[in-house]
């Protein structure tokens, strides 16, 4: 059942949620799901702690690109978090229930649920606010939990819902709905392209057992980013390491991270199963940010067998350059280049220097955005919101406003946005803000510069 939600911004009617629960039952259902989540997970301890330490200093507000653009109080991370904490305190703590009796604190209402559904999807889950919170409150996990509860009562953006359904229950088993024969065709086409370009047999190995690396890019790369894929294949050709793409699962995307722990787990387990089937050693994730974070962060949680190392392709290529295995022509790219840090691996400090070392190894005119690295601004499409085409105007004019300003200030010809979600969003930011620059992946440029 489709349901009209509150407008995200003026003049943008939003009808992108699925909802299965009848309005009269919504507060009860929300509390049932919340109770079940508290019972079976660790969120209760987190809520307990955060609800006691929040100081309402509003430092997070100044860090949040969405609040910076709207000035709307509900966009302040602490205010959004408070919506969930209030429900927790009111309904799930003895103090809250006692205070409700004494002071008549109102219970959860339909309007509260509407407000949460809207606010938790205005947040891009970039966790920039977390960096500056003097109390150490992680508003990202609160957004995640809020979305999780809503999703189990059926409130979830259709775009995310459809993608995950196809990945976990669909015939193709991936978010872009690519059948295996189409994948194989694409790969052989790309091999021909590489042959034409380099006069070499550069392969995309498929279902090769016992390979060192089993490759999981964002599956959309197979449709939209052929140069990135060819760049990655060229790097492997140069290093000589064994790698493979598995036909059982070739999609690194994991939208469970954005809204539902159950799906997050199932998708990670599916990746692990494919590595086991192929007797591979390591998971190699493409340039995509959230795909990398989910594998790196959750394979150790859901892997029941021997440990599987998770490597991102930027780490891999960086190591190859450090080891002197790649020859990149410093004259190949003469234009000015800038680099956008995907929140999902820069915010934690995991992948910040690796891409910069790669870039500096062959690009002369590299300019940073300010701020960058761990402090970088989200592209505006984080947290899965980039999949929701209905809110493009919101994403680019509000969520992506700071990013557009940052990009314009660099004067760069190329902006490298490694992550698949960032790529789509930054491309739309460039279009909607009429910026004179081109979006590329890092391995796009490597493909232009690699020499054998």
């Amino acid at each position: 059942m489709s349901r009209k939600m509150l407008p995200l911004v003026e003049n943008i009617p939003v009808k992108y949620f699925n909802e299965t629960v009848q309005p009269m039952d919504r507060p009860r259902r929300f509390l049932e799901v919340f109770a079940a989540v508290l019972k079976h997970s660790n969120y209760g301890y987190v809520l307990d702690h955060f609800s006691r330490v929040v100081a309402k200093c509003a430092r997070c507000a100044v860090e949040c690109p969405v609040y910076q653009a709207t000035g709307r109080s509900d966009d302040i991370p602490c205010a959004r978090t408070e919506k969930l904490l209030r429900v927790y305190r009111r309904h799930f703590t003895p103090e809250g229930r006692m205070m409700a009796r004494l002071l008549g604190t109102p219970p959860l209402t339909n309007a509260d649920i509407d407000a949460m559904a809207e606010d938790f999807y205005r947040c891009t889950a970039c966790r920039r606010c977390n960096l500056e919170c003097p109390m150490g409150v992680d508003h990202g996990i609160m957004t995640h939990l809020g979305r999780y509860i809503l999703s189990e009562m059926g409130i979830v953006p259709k775009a995310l819902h459809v993608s995950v359904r196809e990945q976990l229950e669909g015939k193709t088993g991936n978010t872009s709905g690519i059948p295996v024969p189409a994948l194989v065709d694409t790969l052989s086409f790309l091999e021909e392209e590489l042959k034409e370009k380099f006069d070499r047999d550069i392969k995309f190995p498929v279902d090769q057992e016992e390979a060192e690396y089993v490759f999981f890019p964002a599956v959309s790369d197979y449709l939209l980013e052929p140069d990135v894929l060819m760049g990655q294949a060229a790097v492997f050709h140069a290093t000589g390491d064994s790698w493979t793409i598995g036909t059982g699962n070739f999609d690194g995307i994991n939208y469970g991270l954005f809204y539902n722990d159950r799906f997050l787990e199932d998708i990670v387990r599916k990746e692990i199963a494919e590595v086991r089937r192929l007797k591979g050693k390591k998971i190699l994730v493409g340039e995509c940010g959230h795909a990398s974070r989910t594998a790196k962060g959750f394979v150790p949680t859901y892997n029941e067998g021997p440990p599987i190392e998770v490597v991102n392709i930027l780490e891999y290529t960086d190591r190859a350059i450090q080891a002197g295995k790649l020859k990149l022509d410093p004259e190949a790219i003469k234009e000015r280049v800038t680099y956008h840090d995907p929140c999902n691996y820069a915010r934690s400090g995991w992948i910040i220097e690796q891409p910069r070392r790669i870039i500096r190894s062959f690009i002369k005119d590299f300019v940073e955005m300010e701020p960058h690295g761990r402090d970088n601004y989200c592209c505006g499409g984080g947290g899965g919101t980039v999949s929701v085409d209905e809110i493009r105007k919101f994403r680019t004019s509000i969520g992506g406003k700071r990013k557009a300003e940052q990009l314009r200030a660099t004067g760069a010809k190329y902006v490298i946005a490694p992550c698949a979600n960032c790529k789509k969003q930054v491309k739309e930011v460039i279009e909607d803000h009429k910026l004179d620059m081109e979006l590329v992946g890092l391995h796009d440029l490597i493909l232009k510069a690699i020499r054998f």
Partner: protein
Amino acid sequence: METLIEFGRGPLFRFAVAVAVLGLLRQAVLSAWGVRQMLKRAADNRIALGAVVWRTIVQLNPLRYFTGNRWLYSMLSTLFHVGLILVPVFFLGHIRLWRRGLGLGWPALPMGVADVLTIVTIVTGLALFVARGWAKASRQISRPQDWLLPPLIALEFLTGYLLAHPGTTTFRFETLMLVHVGVGDLLLILTPFTKIAHCAMLPFSQLVAELAWRFVPGAGREVVKTIGKEGQPI
């Protein structure tokens, strides 16, 4: 009034200290117990403790906030906290009270230093109140306690200063003492129930945030079983 003051400095003070100490202890124990439970339930419970400790130190270092956004608010807040922590514990008059109430004593701050810290706390307490109202974002999200605590603390320090310098005021000594003792006891009693409790819980924050993303395997399946959605298609 004498009787009230004596009550405030005697039994009520001991009660207020007990509430504050036991309340904070409870908060700290709950946080520690929560961390333990999270570690027990999470499948991936390897923690890079060094990194977490380092992040906690970084988070607690007030200087880092001086160059970022809201730098003025951060400086005010830091100065406010310095006086707030030192004066109640290390002012000579308070040490006498501690000794009387609890039988414990320790060296005192020089009077001049205590005076400066007291004035700084009063000024910054009031400035924090103004700053909270001044900045739209903090104004929008403030709870009653956020508005009340800084001026209440400033009042406590102001009455304390006037009591220590009786020549500077026309107020009656007993009135000032009653307000000072009463507000002091109130603040102690409020400590575990308001955001002042962060003093006991802050050291756990980074660890809690780290563990928050260590999920419990199979929890999602258990949730759908509990809510009666098991076996339903996505």
